[in-house]
């Protein structure tokens, strides 16, 4: 299950077969996974994976490192939870509320942040997201440090009971696949090509007549909205929304997932998310303090495996033989 990221480097023949087999095998795995793994764990993994993929849309393909994506993730979780619990909306509408809210937040934060580039951009997003964190801490509707609890999952389209773990799983899987498909489409579109060129040489892109700010803002909002999709679904999976998801540590976590899986690879974040979530679960019952391990993984990754798991695979001899490539 792997798609190459590289937008259309002219390739003579692609070993399409191998890639299709990968894709099919991957999908089959996801469909059958609940037989082997704990469904809530899988759902959590898929939510984070979608989150990381959406984040990667910005980092990997537009070259913008946002250190504030938790605002969209956690924000959407709050919005969805509130819409479903207090307004009594059905789950699909509740998620849409989350997505819209995240997109709106994205538009505001993005509008300010794209005025600077590079690491300034990272710091600005971090600061603005922190501001949003304080807002959530104090706002009435988030219920402060208690969080919005006991959010009903409800019935999808009025008749699929999501309190059934299996139903919920396939719903989450569906959302995940749709989300990733949207991201894939955006990256491999004429628009995606312009994003790439902006990442490469902004001034030149301006001189070719592209309004760089609008493109960046559009990418930012898209990424925020897709992040909101993941956050909204997560609120339904766990049936609560808390401050954890809007904290800056969460923004750091999603970066770790993306980095670990492979920046600029479409499905890398899935593996990254899997690893981080598993690690956290495992470390919860071990002697090792989680923060130290997370920190060390970060450092080792940056120093030794910058391409991430999937990136390294693409770049390995086997990966290249199969026709993957990774230029980042």
């Amino acid at each position, binding site marked *: 299950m792997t798609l190459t990221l590289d937008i259309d480097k002219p390739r003579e023949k692609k070993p399409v077969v191998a890639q299709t087999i990968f894709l099919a095998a991957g999908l089959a795995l996801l469909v059958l996974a609940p037989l082997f793994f704990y469904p809530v764990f899988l759902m959590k993994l898929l939510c984070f994976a979608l989150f990381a993929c959406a984040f990667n849309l910005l980092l990997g393909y537009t070259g913008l490192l946002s250190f504030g994506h938790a605002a969209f993730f956690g924000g959407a979780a709050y919005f969805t939870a509130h819409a479903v619990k207090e307004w009594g909306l059905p789950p699909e509408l509740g998620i849409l509320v989350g997505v819209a809210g995240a997109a709106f937040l994205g538009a505001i934060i993005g509008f300010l942040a794209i005025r600077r580039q590079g690491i300034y951009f990272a710091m600005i997003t971090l600061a603005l997201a922190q501001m949003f964190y304080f807002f959530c801490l104090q706002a009435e509707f988030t219920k402060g440090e208690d969080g919005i609890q006991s959010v009903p999952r409800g019935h999808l389209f009025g008749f699929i009971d999501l309190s059934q773990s299996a139903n919920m799983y396939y719903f989450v899987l569906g959302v995940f696949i749709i989300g990733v498909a949207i991201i894939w489409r955006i990256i491999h579109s004429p628009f995606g090509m312009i994003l790439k060129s902006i990442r490469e040489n902004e001034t*030149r892109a301006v001189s070719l*007549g592209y309004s760089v700010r609008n493109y960046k803002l559009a990418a930012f909002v898209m990424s925020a909205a897709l992040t909101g999709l993941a956050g909204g679904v997560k609120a339904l999976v766990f049936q609560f929304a808390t401050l954890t998801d809007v904290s800056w540590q969460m923004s750091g976590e999603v970066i770790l997932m993306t980095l670990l899986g492979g920046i600029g690879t479409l499905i890398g974040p899935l593996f990254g998310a899997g690893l981080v979530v598993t690690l956290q679960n495992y470390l919860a019952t071990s002697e090792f303090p989680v923060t130290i391990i997370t920190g060390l993984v970060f450092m080792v990754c940056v120093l030794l495996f910058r391409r991430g798991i999937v990136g390294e695979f693409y770049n390995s001899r086997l990966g290249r033989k199969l026709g993957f490539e990774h230029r980042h």
Partner: protein
Amino acid sequence: MTAVLPEQNGAPRVVLSARGLRRDFGGFTAVNNVNLDVHDARVHALIGPNGAGKTTVFNLLTKFLQPTDGTITLLGEDITRMAPDKVARMGLVRSFQISAVFPHMSVLENVRVALQRPNGLATQFWKPMSALDGLTAKADHLIRSVGLDKERNAVAADLSYGRKRVLEIATTLALDPKVLLLDEPMAGMGHEDVGMVAEIIREVARERAVLMVEHNLSVVSTLCHHVTVLQRGEILAEGDYAEVSADPRVRTAYMGTEEA
């Protein structure tokens, strides 16, 4: 030798003009009271000693810099306060003195990115990549016309300096601009490329206006219909090459004793 104006019905049209252009950097005036008219179907050279303000004039005209004073008119519209990308969309396109390409894209991709906007394929995030296939033929044509066919699939970063300049010209042409601003297009190029690029410029200028900065006087003399000499931000002399090069002030300020 001076180039001969192409035959025209009536006077050539002014497409880009600047009046009283001025730009200060802190207390330093880099460009002062520059009036400039760029005509359709003509190659106009902007020459002058280093630091005279040529690149700054380019930055002002393309709106990469805001003028401190003065007005700029493009195709009859006042663009003095316009954003640079908007100006580019109106058909005023430039190249850069220090070459500007998309380093990790192939030559083909570089050209195609430039082709996307004029062909209305820039914002479609829902369309597949194959939507761009239609541009490949055009891109290949451009690539061939500047002699980059061998490097078509090479990554731009791996090109030598001179080849990058050629690529930049190809992307600039891809936009099918109405007015072309070239900042030292021949700098760093080998002899055969100089000839080729000169030929391309001549070809382009049949229907469009070209304003170029160039230090290679033999190119200026054979290619340009009109020459403006800048010195210390102000216009020192104007006219065709023969007139300008005969001007003793230009000779001392710029050309020196050397023959072009």
